[in-house]
């Protein structure tokens, strides 16, 4: 209820701004419609004018362009605020659980997919493209899942699919029992290479 009313009030505040931005964009797209043929100037003004009508038109266009840029920036800022607000409302810190994935080295394992189960319920099944795997190998950390859990004991099970050593199909699981407290819970699925065993290692790290 609180979330709905906050979002409604935010949208009410945004609506006139978006309408103005749209109107300005439309008028900027067709300057001929905005600025029709200049009306005949009074004789006194015409004789004493310091700048030509074309200079005035250029200055007007410049001002309009600045106004559009300003409005665009406002919309981007508001969108950012809305995103943060949405995250805070949908996943409050007292119930939030987030699971991240990171890969280190990756000589012995080529990641294909990860299936995530919390308390034996499927919560995520993610297929990785080569570009995503490459981003992970370059040090990227992916937020695989964010959701809500009540306080207490829970179990997370992660199933990793991919190609192991010698390009063989490889399927491994890792699980962790964790205590969800009052604050947000962050868990990290880490895929590393075990050089001595020449095998990949799958570990779940609980960020306290």
């Amino acid at each position, binding site marked *: 209820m609180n979330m709905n009313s906050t979002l409604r009030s935010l949208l009410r505040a945004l609506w006139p701004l978006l309408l103005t931005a749209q109107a300005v964009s439309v008028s900027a797209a067709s300057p001929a419609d905005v600025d029709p043929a200049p009306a005949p100037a009074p004789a006194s003004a015409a004789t004493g004018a310091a700048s030509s009508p074309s200079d005035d038109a250029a200055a007007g266009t410049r001002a309009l362009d600045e106004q559009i840029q300003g409005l665009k920036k406002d919309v981007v800022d508001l969108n950012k605020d809305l995103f943060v607000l949405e995250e805070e409302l949908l996943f409050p810190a007292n119930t939030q659980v987030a699971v991240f994935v990171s890969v280190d080295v990756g000589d012995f394992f080529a990641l294909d*997919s990860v299936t995530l189960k919390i308390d034996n319920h499927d919560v995520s099944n993610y*297929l990785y*493209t080569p570009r*995503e795997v490459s981003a992970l190998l370059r040090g990227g950390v992916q937020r695989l899942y964010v959701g809500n859990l009540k306080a207490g004991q829970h179990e997370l099970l992660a199933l990793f699919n991919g190609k192991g050593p010698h390009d063989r199909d490889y399927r491994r699981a890792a699980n962790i029992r964790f205590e969800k407290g009052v604050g947000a819970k962050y868990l990290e699925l880490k895929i590393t290479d075990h050089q001595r065993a020449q095998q990949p290692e799958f570990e779940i790290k609980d960020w306290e």
Partner: protein
Amino acid sequence: MMAAILIGATAALAATSASNGLIGRPAPDFVLPAVAGSNVRLSEFRGQPVMISFWSSRCGLCAAQLTAMDRYYGTYRSSGLIVLGVSVEDDQQRAIDYAHAHAASFPLLLDKDKSVGRAFGIERLPTTVLIDRAGQVRFMHSDDRAGDPSYVAQIRALLDDRPERSDR
């Protein structure tokens, strides 16, 4: 007789409107496993025109459609055209066997739970979807006329579209 014609016309209209509903709108994103090779995500091809052909081993016309798609891919891949074949088969092993039998040079993907087929509103096979560089659905064909010159004209129109300049 009249009633049958009316029912048929209404059904045809409904089918047309369902597929046409996507035209001019962003193509639903998806990630699917390929029969051979790695997973494919549609949004990673943003900036390139994409042609998707939905097929099934039970569809008699799909083989000819895939052959035509392969020909287009061979001709226009150097210009940046991406071609994807998406199976909406119930039996995955059958789809894999069919894909091996009709080896295509473009990725053949498996839509196991048919979620992609549903997202694109596929009602007939073969169906071909053409997506522009901005990721918007531009053309949809629910027929087997892949050899039709209109296909080539549409592919060329998508290739001729210059990528829009981004403000960011």
